[in-house]
C-alpha cells in the first residue's frame, strides 16, 4: 500500500553513472562499426530495467543499489529504473505486460495486483527457476519478515521477493491525550477511539481523520475496522473465500465497519471526503488531527522537525479493534517479467538483494516499511524510526498477521473499486450500510463471473 510520499520523477531524471554513459557510447560505437557482432557484445554487459514507483526504497534501487550492484558484478550488469506514480503504476503494468513487452526485466507490484501478474503468466516464479537451473544461487528468505509473503506464496511457490511490509498504525498525539486526561493506547476498542476523538475535537483540531477520497486509501479505513471482528482463517483474504464468493459482510462485519466510520465523521476535518494518501501526512504534521489509523508507510515524516510541527509528540501502536487483534499486512514485491530477455540476470540480482545490504540501503534512502530482521532488531534503527515501535506492540499483544486486500483474484483492482464505491456511498449516507453491502456483494459476484 503506497502513499505517494515522494514527488514523482520522470524516467529521464535518473542520472546515469559515468560507466553507464561510457558503456553506452561504446555499445553505440560498436553497433556502428560491427553491426552483426552486437549481440555477442551485449551478452557480456546486461542492463536490467526495473519498473518502480515513487517511494523511498525505489529511489535506492535506481541510485545506491544500482551502483553497488554494478560494482558487485564488475560492471557486467547495470540497473536502471523508471518511476511511476501510484495511480499510473497499475495501468503501466497492464499495458506493458499484457502486450508482452520486455521493456522491464523486473516489475514491482503492490499486494493487490500480484494475482493478476501470476495468473496471466506475466511473471516467472523464482523457485521453479532455481529448480530448473541448480547453478542459480540460493535465495535467503530467513532474514526477512514473512508477512508480505502471505500474498505472493501460492501454487506451492514464492513468486516474488518483497521489498517492504506495511501495516496499519494507530498514530496519536501524546500531548493532546495527556491534556485531555485520556489514558493512551495500546489496544483500544473503537468505542474508546470514538470517545477520544469526540473529546479531542476542539481548538481547531479534529479528533480524527480518514482518507475517503482515494479508492485504496478509503478501503484501508474500512478494512482496518473489518479485520477486528472475526479471526481470519489462513488462506482467506476476508473479501472472498476459496470459491471467490464474497464474505466481507459475514456476521455483518462490513456493515459494522461502515457504521464505525460514520460515527467518527463529525470529528473529522471538513475535507475528509476528498482526502487521498498525499493528504494524510500533512494532517498530522500540521496538527489538524489528533488520532488517525493508517498504513505505516505514510508516516515517516512525522518525527522530522523540518517538516513536522509536532515532531516527537506522536505515539504509535496497533490499530484499535472490537473483537480480535489482527494486523493485515501488505507490501511491494519484485517480480521477474516472463518476457524479459535477462531473466537469469534478474534472478541473480534479486538473490543478491536478499543478502541484506540492499535492504539497508532502502532504509538509508528513507524507507520505514522495513522487513530486514537485523534492521528491525537494531536499537539504533528503532531509535531512528520511532514508527517501528508498532512491531513491539504487535509482538507484545500477540496481534496476528492477516491478509486482507482482495489479493486472491485476478481482477483485484476492479473488485476493490466496486467495494469502494459501495462503501463510500454508505459512508456518505446515500445508502444504508446494509444496502451498500448487499449491492457490493451483487456487483462482486457479477465481476467474478465476467
Amino acid at each position: 500500500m503506497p502513499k505517494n510520499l515522494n514527488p514523482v520523477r520522470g524516467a529521464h531524471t535518473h542520472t546515469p553513472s559515468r560507466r553507464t554513459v561510457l558503456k553506452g557510447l561504446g555499445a553505440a560505437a560498436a553497433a556502428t562499426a560491427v553491426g552483426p557482432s552486437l549481440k555477442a557484445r551485449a551478452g557480456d554487459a546486461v542492463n536490467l530495467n526495473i519498473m518502480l514507483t515513487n517511494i523511498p526504497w525505489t529511489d535506492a534501487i535506481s541510485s545506491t543499489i544500482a551502483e553497488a550492484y554494478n560494482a558487485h558484478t564488475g560492471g557486467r550488469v547495470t540497473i536502471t529504473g523508471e518511476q511511476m506514480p501510484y495511480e499510473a503504476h497499475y495501468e503501466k503494468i497492464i499495458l506493458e505486460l499484457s502486450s508482452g513487452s520486455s521493456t522491464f526485466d523486473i516489475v514491482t507490484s503492490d499486494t493487490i495486483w500480484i494475482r493478476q501478474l501470476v495468473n496471466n503468466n506475466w511473471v516467472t516464479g523464482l523457485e521453479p527457476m532455481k529448480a530448473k537451473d541448480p547453478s542459480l544461487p540460493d535465495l535467503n528468505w530467513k532474514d526477512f519478515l514473512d508477512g508480505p509473503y502471505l500474498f505472493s506464496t501460492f501454487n506451492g511457490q514464492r513468486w516474488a521477493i518483497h521489498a517492504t511490509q506495511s501495516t496499519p498504525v494507530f498514530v496519536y498525539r501524546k500531548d493532546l491525550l495527556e491534556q485531555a486526561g485520556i489514558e493512551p493506547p495500546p489496544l483500544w476498542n473503537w468505542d474508546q477511539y470514538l470517545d477520544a476523538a469526540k473529546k479531542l475535537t476542539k481548538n481547531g483540531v479534529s479528533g480524527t481523520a480518514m482518507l475517503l477520497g482515494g479508492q485504496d486509501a478509503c478501503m484501508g479505513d474500512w478494512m482496518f475496522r473489518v479485520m477486528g471482528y472475526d479471526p481470519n482463517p489462513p488462506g482467506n483474504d476476508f473479501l472472498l473465500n476459496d470459491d471467490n464468493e464474497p464474505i466481507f459482510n459475514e456476521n455483518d462485519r462490513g456493515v459494522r465497519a461502515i457504521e464505525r466510520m460514520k460515527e467518527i465523521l463529525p470529528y473529522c476535518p471538513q475535507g475528509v471526503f476528498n482526502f487521498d494518501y498525499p493528504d494524510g501526512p500533512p494532517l498530522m504534521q500540521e496538527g489538524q488531527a489528533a488520532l488517525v489509523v493508517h498504513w505505516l508507510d505514510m508516516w515517516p515524516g512525522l518525527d522530522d522537525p523540518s517538516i513536522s510541527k509536532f515532531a516527537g509528540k506522536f505515539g504509535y501502536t496497533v490499530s484499535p479493534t472490537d473483537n480480535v487483534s489482527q494486523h493485515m499486512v501488505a507490501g511491494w514485491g519484485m517480480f521477474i517479467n516472463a518476457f524479459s530477455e535477462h531473466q537469469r540476470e534478474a534472478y541473480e540480482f534479486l538473490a543478491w538483494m536478499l543478502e541484506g545490504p540492499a535492504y539497508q540501503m532502502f532504509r538509508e534512502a528513507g524507507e520505514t516499511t522495513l522487513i530486514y530482521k537485523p534492521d528491525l532488531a537494531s536499537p539504533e534503527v528503532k531509535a531512528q524510526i520511532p514508527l517501528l515501535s508498532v512491531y513491539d506492540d504487535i509482538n507484545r499483544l500477540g496481534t496476528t498477521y492477516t491478509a486482507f486486500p482482495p489479493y486472491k483474484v485476478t481482477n483485484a483492482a476492479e473488485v476493490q473499486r466496486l467495494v469502494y464505491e459501495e462503501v463510500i456511498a454508505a459512508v456518505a449516507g446515500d445508502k444504508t450500510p446494509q444496502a451498500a453491502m448487499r449491492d457490493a456483494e451483487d456487483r462482486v459476484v457479477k465481476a467474478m463471473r465476467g
Partner: protein
Amino acid sequence: MLAPTFIVLTAVGIYPLGYSLWISFNDYHPSNPSFPQGFIWFENYLTAFLDGQARHALGLTAIFTVSSVGASLVIGFALALLFNQRLPGLAIARTLILIPMLVTPIAVGITWRIMFNPDLGVINYLLGLIGIPSQGWLASMNQSLLSVIVVDVWQWTPFMFLILFAGVRSLPRSPFESAAIDGASRAKIFFLVTLPMMRPVILLAVLLRAVDSVRTFDQIFMMTRGGPNQTTDLVSLYLQRVNFKFFDIGYGAALSWLFLILLMAAVIAFIRYSGFLRSAAEKEAR
C-alpha cells in the same frame, strides 16, 4: 498524387477510429488471463444502455457543461463589454485575465485542490475573514460539482472573453447610436441590439466551449477523481475508470462511441436550431 495524403489520413485518422470501433464489438480485457476474449456483437452497446453509472455520468456532464458554458458566457460577455470601454489600465488587465487559459489543466487542478482544501485552503480562509463559515467545497457532496464548475469557468472564461471581445470590437458603431437616439435605454440596447448583433459570435463561442467542456478531464481528475461519492463523475472520468481501472477496453470503446454519437447529434442539433450557419452567413454579408 493523392496517394500519400490518403495513406497518412488513413494511418492517423481512420485506422485508429476503425480499430476502436472493432474493439467496441469485442470483450477486450487485457488484464484477464482469458485475453483475448473475442467478438461479442452488440453486447457492450446493450450494456451501455442499461448502465446507470453511465447515465449518471451523462447527467453530470450535461449539468457541468451547461453551467460552465453559461456562466463563462455571461462573465466573458460582461468583461468584453467592460473592456470595450476606453478606461485607463484596462489594456494591462486585459492581458492579465488571459492567464488562466494558458495554465496546464493539471496544474490548475492541483492548485485549486489546494485552495479548496476546507481546513488549510486559502478560499475558506478568505471567506472566514468576512465571516462566512468554512465550506467543504470539493470534499462536500453538495458543493463538489459546483466547485469543479467554478474552476472550469475560471479557466475558460478568458477564452470566451477573447472571442466575444473580438466580436464586440468588430461591431459597427452606428446601430448603437441609432438605438440611443431612437429612445432605447441601455438595457434595451443590450437586449435588442447588442445581443442579437453578437449572436453569430456567441453561438460560435458557445459551440467551441461546449465541445471542449464535455471533454474536461484533467482538472477534475486532479481535484476529485470523480468523487466524493461520484458527485463529479463526468463521462470522461467514468471512461477513464472503465478503461484503466476495470480494463474493460471493449466496453470503454463502446461507451466512447455512444458518447461521440450523442455529442455529434447535439452539435448538429445546435447548429440547426440555433441558426448558427444562417447568422454566420449574415455576418459575412454585413
